[in-house]
């Protein structure tokens, strides 16, 4: 069950190199880790976005698994069709009787925003598949526009920082909480900087008896305005500051925080590494950093309370 890196290093990467993602992009890292973790053959889908356009440039494909892209807002719906076809054809003996995993990928735009309905429908219907959101906190493929995953104060090309504006006005949407509200089989947050944690979650998700969802923070150095070789470091700092807590939630309602920073670092440290927050250093914008910190604290405390409550409820029930 536990991830054995030595064994994994002998496995073939199911996402071939040579794709067109930017050097230093953490998206392909997320996909490769997920595919390496899978213990059965998988069929993958991806929403329109950076990961789709860079991995399937006709006549080439990086996918060594069966793969389908159909559009932007419907990765979950498309893959729910694939998964349903599998159940139907397996029952009728028209495909070999063996387990196949189904993984739908989508960026935050394709998941939090335009694909939210499709995701919600898939979760509610209970398809046995894993949805992985690689969350780079903006619409990167079309040029770094604001999404509902963009943090408050971050500058994007549609929510700019200027003489009267300071980037995005609103806090980010807590999509993971929205997913949990559907009561699916398994939900988690992860980062590519802690592959053991992420890959264990992928394995648990694929084994779960129903729909599962993993939200993975995937820094984009173009959009976050940081150095190309700092994506992994910044992902890790998002965890150490509790901006991006790592946890898993298992049906019927047990939340486990899978990584607790020894010392919770201030969110300002995370912000400092990213050019998209540069304007927050100006005195007139400094209050936004405090507001961001307050939001991080609120969520983290909520999570700690939820962990305590659900674990207590479970042990009582057990």
């Amino acid at each position, binding site marked *: 069950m536990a991830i054995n890196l030595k064994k994994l290093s002998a496995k073939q990467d199911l996402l071939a190199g040579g794709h067109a993602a930017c050097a230093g992009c953490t998206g392909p890292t997320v996909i490769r880790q997920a595919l390496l973790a899978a213990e059965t053959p998988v069929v993958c889908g991806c929403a329109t976005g950076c990961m789709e356009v860079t991995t399937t*440039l006709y006549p080439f494909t990086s996918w060594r698994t069966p793969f389908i892209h*159909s559009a932007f807002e419907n990765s979950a719906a498309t893959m729910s*069709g*694939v998964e349903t076809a599998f159940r139907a*054809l397996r029952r009728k003996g*028209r495909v070999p009787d063996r387990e196949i995993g189904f993984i739908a990928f989508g960026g935050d735009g394709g998941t939090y925003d335009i694909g939210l309905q*499709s995701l919600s*429908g898939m979760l509610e219907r209970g398809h046995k598949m894993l949805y992985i959101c690689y969350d780079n906190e903006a619409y990167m493929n079309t040029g770094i526009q604001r999404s509902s995953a963009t943090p408050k104060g971050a500058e994007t090309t549609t929510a700019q920082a200027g003489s009267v504006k300071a980037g995005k006005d609103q806090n980010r949407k807590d999509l993971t909480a929205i997913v949990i509200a559907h009561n699916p089989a398994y939900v988690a947050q992860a980062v590519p900087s802690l592959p053991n944690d992420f890959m264990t979650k992928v394995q648990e998700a694929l084994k779960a008896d129903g729909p599962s969802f993993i939200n993975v923070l995937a820094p984009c150095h173009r959009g976050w305005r940081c150095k190309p070789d700092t994506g992994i470091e910044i992902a890790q700092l998002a965890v150490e500051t509790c901006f991006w807590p790592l946890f898993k939630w298992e049906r019927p309602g047990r939340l486990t925080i899978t990584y607790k920073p020894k010392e919770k670092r201030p969110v300002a440290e995370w912000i400092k590494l990213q050019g998209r927050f540069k304007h927050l250093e100006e005195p007139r914008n400094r209050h936004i950093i405090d507001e961001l910190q307050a939001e991080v604290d609120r969520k983290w405390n909520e999570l700690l309370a939820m962990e305590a409550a659900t674990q207590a409820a479970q042990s009582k029930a057990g």
Partner: protein
Amino acid sequence: MSKLISLTGNDAAAHALRQSRPDVAAAYPITPQTELMHKFAEFVANGQVDTDMILVESEHSAMSAAIGSSAAGARTFTATSANGMALMWEMLYIAASSRLPIVMPEVNRALSGPINIHCDHSDTMGARDAGWIQLFCENSQEAYDTTIQAFRIAEHPDVLLPVMICYDGFIISHTNEPVAMLDDAVVAKFVGEYTPARKLLDVDNPYTFGPLDLPEWYFEHKRQQIEAMRKAPAIIEAVGKEFGALSGRTYEFMEGYRMEDAEVVLVALGSTCGTAREAVDVVRESGIKAGLLKLRAFRPFPIARVRSALSKARVVGVFDRSVSFGIEGGPLYHEVRSSLYGGTTPVLPFVYGLGGRDIRVEQIAQAYRTLDEAAKRGVKERDVEFIGLRDA
């Protein structure tokens, strides 16, 4: 062999779908398509068909799930009307360009706005360039027969295109008519198994569907789609013939009524053709050599066949149940007119029945008289004539 029973168009199509043994169906409600899915769900609930239904949260997801299911290797259908198809719009093109043989009854309903639930052809006409085969039906029997044939046409290796079965909302979908059904086993044999060459579930032979296709190759792939559509007429005809041998009801691209010596000809689609036959008989009694050309396929559009069918006409009128704003005459008018390009026969446009406005025998008879008069006066061109419209 055939039993005659009373069925609505929706029930007839549902039976045809059941007998075609689809693996997966994606369903979302919209009037007047709903009863088709109710009937089909009843078959599923009673074990009369072994189909997995995906009860999606929107039509966009219905077509998306159908695309995933069809690409996975399952025989797949969905059904819709008007706004439902409008919401699928993006995915209609993707289904066709992915060469997925999805079958979809499209129960014709006026497209909003204003919102209206009754029949016209504005919904399917807007999708004429989406790359789907579009077959129109005159009655419940044709809805049944066409649905069965649709799977054969769509899944033919020379075609591999999705097929839309268009039948008029309420007029066909909700009207009981006698329908001759084939035996389940006969249909099962006729339709056969769906065995696609490439499927997502073949995990040992991974295949990428829906890649990014830039200027280097996109055009060639569109060409392949064009060629598939070019090959479709022969397959539509062959399947119609084979179906005829089985059922006694042969289907061709078009059907003429009293066309042998016809000089004043109307071209129309769908249920109105039944009404127009009566009108032909009425005006023939007053000496007008009237005829009707009923088209079955709107896509692929049979230009050469239309030209030869209309070669003896003195004047042609075209009945459109939809409009194209900013140009006189609807989509059918323009296709018929370009089919006759280079000839001297006047082709005159009519628009009728928008939003479910009734069309009566006498109104069509009057259209024949108008056409006859126009031909006598040497009218070559005029603005569209609206039938049954109040003077504002």
